[in-house]
């Protein structure tokens, strides 16, 4: 029984190293985990895939740095798909703290697919207004977004020529860390019948599931797992796919820790009981 005794008191730092290894190694080796895209994610992918060339997609950045690993990979995969199909993303931001992240992702993928700013895509940045803005977009986008994110008038960009309101957007994609999506579904979806797709953090994805069942949204991407599925569909494995391997092995490691710790605990308890306790 000595080894249980010793193992139960190994140094905390040894466990930290173990968890670090289990996260780093899969990121380097990028093992091929069979990520099977689920229906809610596939629905979004196929919808965007069959959009006619030149149609516009409104992307709303409603997350911040704390949920970057779960949202950024999906943003990049979606943008790759849009540029590949000549679909024009229009980016707006509801969470100011997410603006730099949205811009970073957009510029990175635009450079990668050499898309031209103002022709193939545009970034309108953050404007306060929340619900009033969502309703305003039903009438005229320029009421709220007369300037782009660098304060240049939107009318100087060809992409904005025939964009006025929701009718001009084939799809609204909300990347959500909080509950802003409830307002999108109620106002953009409910009042203006705008087609909506949502990407949520793993924590809040289950809450939005019934929107998908009731067809108020066309699809739902949940956390890094959803993002990985989208990367597999776009067959450009990147952070999310690599991340999913590390995520899986870390979960298994923690589960093994719990199981092993409890075995040692129960063995210890029986030993004490057998000795009748001092």
């Amino acid at each position, binding site marked *: 029984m000595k080894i249980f005794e010793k193992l139960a*008191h190994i140094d*905390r730092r040894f466990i930290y190293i173990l968890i670090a290894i289990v996260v780093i190694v899969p990121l380097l080796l990028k093992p091929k985990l069979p990520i099977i895209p689920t229906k809610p994610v596939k629905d979004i992918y196929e919808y965007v895939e069959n959009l006619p060339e030149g149609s516009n997609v409104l992307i709303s950045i409603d997350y911040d740095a704390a949920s970057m690993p779960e949202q950024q990979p999906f943003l990049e995969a979606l943008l790759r798909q849009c540029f590949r199909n000549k679909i024009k993303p229009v980016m707006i931001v509801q969470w100011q703290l997410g603006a730099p992240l949205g811009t970073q992702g957009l510029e990175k993928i635009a450079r990668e697919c050499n898309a031209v700013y103002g022709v193939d895509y545009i970034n309108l940045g953050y404007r306060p207004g929340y619900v*009033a803005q969502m309703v*305003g977009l039903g*009438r005229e986008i320029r*009421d709220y977004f007369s300037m782009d994110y660098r304060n240049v008038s939107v009318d100087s960009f060809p992409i904005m020529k025939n964009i*006025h*309101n929701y*009718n001009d957007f084939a799809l609204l994609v909300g990347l959500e860390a909080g509950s802003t999506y409830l307002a999108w579904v109620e106002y953009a979806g409910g*009042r*203006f*019948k705008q087609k909506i797709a949502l990407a949520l953090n793993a924590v809040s994805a289950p809450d939005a599931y019934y929107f998908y069942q009731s067809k108020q949204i066309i699809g739902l991407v949940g956390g890094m797992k959803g993002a990985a599925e989208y990367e597999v569909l776009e067959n450009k494995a990147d952070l999310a796919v690599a991340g999913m391997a590390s995520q899986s092995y870390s979960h298994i490691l923690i589960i093994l820790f719990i199981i092993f710790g409890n075995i040692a605990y129960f063995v210890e308890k029986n030993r004490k009981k057998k000795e009748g306790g001092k």
Partner: protein
Amino acid sequence: MLRRNLVIFLLSALALFTFAFPQEAASSSTLPDSASLTPEGSSLGSFLHLSDIPNDGGGGIEISWEAGDSLSNYFITIVRREGDKRKVVATDILASSGQARDVNSDEDRTNIKDGTEYYYTAVLSEFMISQEMIDYLTCDSLDMKVFTIADSSQVYVLSDESGPVKSKASWFNLERLTVLISAIIITFLFLWYFQLAKKGKDLYIRKINGLDAVEEAVGRSTEMGKPIMYILGIGYVTDIPTIAGLTILGRVAKKVAEYETKILVPSYDPVVMTTAQEVVKEAYTEAGRPDIYNKNDIMYITQDQFGYAAGVDGMMMREKPGAVFLQGLFFAESLILAETGHSIGAIQIAGTTETAQLPFFVAACDYTLIGEEMMAASVYLQKDPLMLGSIVAEDGMKVIIVVILVLGIVLGILGPGFHIGIIDKLFNLLIEIL
């Protein structure tokens, strides 16, 4: 006690059910399907259905229409007439959406003036309306009686003018009636129990089973000759869980004084430290042992989250307490504290209202006071009428909620379940009221 709650419940149930809402019957004229819609064909008739937006601050007109499914992807542009001035208020609305609102926005507060008469006409078009058409619609020479107008690209069909309609502000928001009733009932419940508590009537609170774990923990720790450590977390004196933690500290300190062992209280905030020193001193004098109270046992560590955790960790390893109490406001650092406490074999009793940290405490500690239990424990110890009244009042509300939910089950089974007409209506009424 239960008898009184039942009386209160009957009163509230009665109030809820007397307010049934008359269903507004919306008459509507259906639109002829597109086949019969030829330029000279039948007109749309008074196609738009107008009403003031209820329960609003005025300046809002609700416009709704019925679009047959054959016309669902047509566009509708709405023209408003006030006296002889005409204005296009909405362009290219999908016919299938069925409704639009002409309201004042923050920028343009005088779009709709309460009390003035407005007339609305719908212009149906297969494609998006052109700019010239919009200007033409608002010019004076246009006679709105005509059925169709054509421009270079398509034919527009005009409906008859419907109206007049006036917008008005309502003085009471009917949709929030249930909130009003609930607020009245709840406030009445609170005041009722405050009076009872103040009049000294001892309202009964059950003993929280975590508290006798306190007795056992302190006892076992003194047997082993080890000190007790009490950690108040990283809250401030204004945080409710910290206040509750200080109350429980009083009880634990009194027990420690009786067993004549040492109590260590490492603190995150100087103000919390001074308050803790007062609480422990008072507890020691109450137990008749002011002489063994040592001010330095309650000390200030640091005001940084993980620095505090590291400091307390070091102290735990050195002092090897037999019992560790974690009562107050905790965040991510709680895991380091609970883990070290477990590894030195101490009995750990935790308590916090932070739902994010509770799972980790339950898994790592011997006993955990979950959220409200911690409040109830501090009230059980201190019997302060203010808190006693509110805990019992909240229990009263929980009874009301549970009874309404049980009622929901009964109606749910009988109504939709066995399709008994009237119960089904009652069931939907209950849902609509809430």
